[in-house]
């Protein structure tokens, strides 16, 4: 895996590079947007790690340039900004993932591998209903190509509902589908809340989740 790290804090960058190199990840380091452009011009990367505030501009500008130039490589944004609104907006810039500083190096590594796998996935398992697409291998759900910010449980639930489109799933059945998450017990009552969140997030995709009172939930394309 080859990674471009765009980060102006030299010590942080050095530490990250060393760490990644130990894990067998090749990492180029750019201090500024200009340097990053030079790197991108001559070398292809599997993942780009992009800091938002850089000496010669904002990382989001580079991201926008890259997307406009047709670069589809995954981008993980680093942000020192705190508020949730800003975290969410990272996706709207076209980022594939983000981390808030300070972050744990192990977390960074794990995310990089997820992004890399996602890039390599052949999308064979992808399910599409309306404008909503679900890629279980890459762990990405998107509406019209815009990635949805789903938690893992939401993602798993959406997977169950989409794989069995048109079928009615009881709360308990859906809960069973979440058994793999053994780190927490959320209970059947949480299903209702998850469904409500999913509904909000997939609104406008042409797909809706209906509640059948006393029986459960069913996902269907509209119309």
């Amino acid at each position, binding site marked *: 895996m080859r990674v471009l790290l765009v980060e102006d804090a030299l010590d942080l960058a050095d530490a990250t590079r060393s760490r990644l190199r130990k894990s067998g990840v090749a990492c180029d380091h750019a201090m500024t947007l200009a340097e990053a452009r030079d790197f991108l011009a001559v070398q292809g990367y599997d993942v780009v790690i992009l800091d938002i505030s850089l000496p010669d501009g904002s990382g989001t500008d580079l991201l926008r340039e890259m997307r406009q130039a047709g670069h589809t490589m995954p981008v993980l944004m680093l942000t020192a900004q*705190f508020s949730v609104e800003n975290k969410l907006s990272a996706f709207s810039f076209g980022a594939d993932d983000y981390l808030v500083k300070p972050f744990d190096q192990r*977390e960074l590594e794990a995310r990089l591998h997820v992004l890399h796998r996602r890039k390599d996935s052949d999308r064979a398992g992808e399910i599409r209903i309306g404008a909503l697409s679900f890629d279980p291998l890459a762990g990405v759900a998107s509406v019209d190509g815009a990635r949805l910010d789903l*938690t893992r*449980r939401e993602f798993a639930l959406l997977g169950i509902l989409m794989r069995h489109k048109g079928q009615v799933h009881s709360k308990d059945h859906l809960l069973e589908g979440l058994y793999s998450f053994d780190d*927490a*017990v959320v209970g059947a*009552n*949480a299903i209702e*809340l998850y469904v409500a*969140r999913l509904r909000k997030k997939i609104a406008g995709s042409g797909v809706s989740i209906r509640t059948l009172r006393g029986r459960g939930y069913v996902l269907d394309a509209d119309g």
Partner: protein
Amino acid sequence: MADAAAPRPTMSLSARMLVGLGGLLAIGGVLLALAAYGYGRAAARDAFDRLLVGAASSIATSVSVVDGAPVVDIPVSAFDLLALAPEDRVGYLVTGPGGMVLTGYPELAEAITRPGPEPALFDGRFTGEPARIIRYTRRFAERSFSGQVDVVIAQTMRARDQLAWNITRNALMVLAIAGVAVLVLSVLVIRSALGPLDRIAARLEARDPQDLTPIDMALPREIGVMVGALNGFMGRLDRQLGTMQRLISDTAHQLRTPVAALRAQADLAGGEDDPDRLRQIVGRIHRRSVSLGRLLDQMLSRAMVIHRIDAARREVVDLRDIALELVESADHKLVAPDAVVRLEIGDAPVLARADALSLGEAAKNLMFNALTHGEAPITVGASARDDAVTLWVEDAGAGPSEAVRDQLGDRFLRNAVSRGTSAGLGLSIAKSVAEAFGGSLEMTPRPDGFRIAMVFPAEPPQ
């Protein structure tokens, strides 16, 4: 204030008032003018109709019966009466039984047969000019003559028109004077009404920039509302300024200690040759920095929460959502990768009126406290009881120390900070949030652990 953005000037209040009032007066003026003209015409008609009646009756009275026939001797007084309309021409006709003309203008004969009550007054024409016509009938029942004598008088309308116009004009002049007076008065009233604004502006200009105390002036109620809003705004500004200042001072306190520790450990590491000792020192540095990052998060979280408590809109929040969000957030895995966090919620919404983000931050702090200082398993939940709702975090441990509980709400948690932990800060955030939304922070030892809950007044379901 020279560099302050000039407010976009819209139409001045005086101008608005004048335009509105002017429009009103214009419309009212037109209506009143029409009314005055109508009144003037009616008044002129009444006045001159009375002359006509008087003249006709005096002519009718002058009719006497001589040798079995009616004889008219038109009195000069009748015409003197009619001459009170000095510019008007007059036609008259006196007829006996069968319309026999006794004297006057035969062309007025038409009026004799016109139906109507007695005396009949109606509009007509006299030799090409509009005229008011009266028919006045006198009936005789005498031995020698029995029958009726009709007196018709037609009078042109110049005097009537003139009187109507005079009345209208006088009314209009009074109206115009009143209108101008109203406008002038309204300008004065607006001036005096806006006077307090000038005084407020002067008072604000004269202020020290740091002075955010409420404006205390005797003011009209309407402006009082605005000044109340201004005072509220300044109050919020003042609190935020205070928050900022406290944040800066807290930050100084709370950051210097761990940074000093880091620096000391780094110094130590620089001079250490023993690899084991070195690894130990690096481990300490790592723990310190992780905890410093956590501390930073909390301080920012607290600043944000305090900011939002003042600024964010209150909305109806399902506390179950907050609890779920909390369990969902993957962050806790960094702190305690192996901890199990359970969610315990019912199937009915648990509604409170609050700010979801602030609640989330507060709950997150409680959960991290539990993860860091408590014992697994950790349970996060939302539940309703009586007329209150709670968002709580429970762990299997014994709860915070008495010291921490006593210091709850004291933002100055030197002790916790110097230990490199921040349970107290998290609690203080939760307490601030709970209180900001009309609730409180409850700590309850339970048989199998310890529960910390934010308790809010229940919001009725919509």
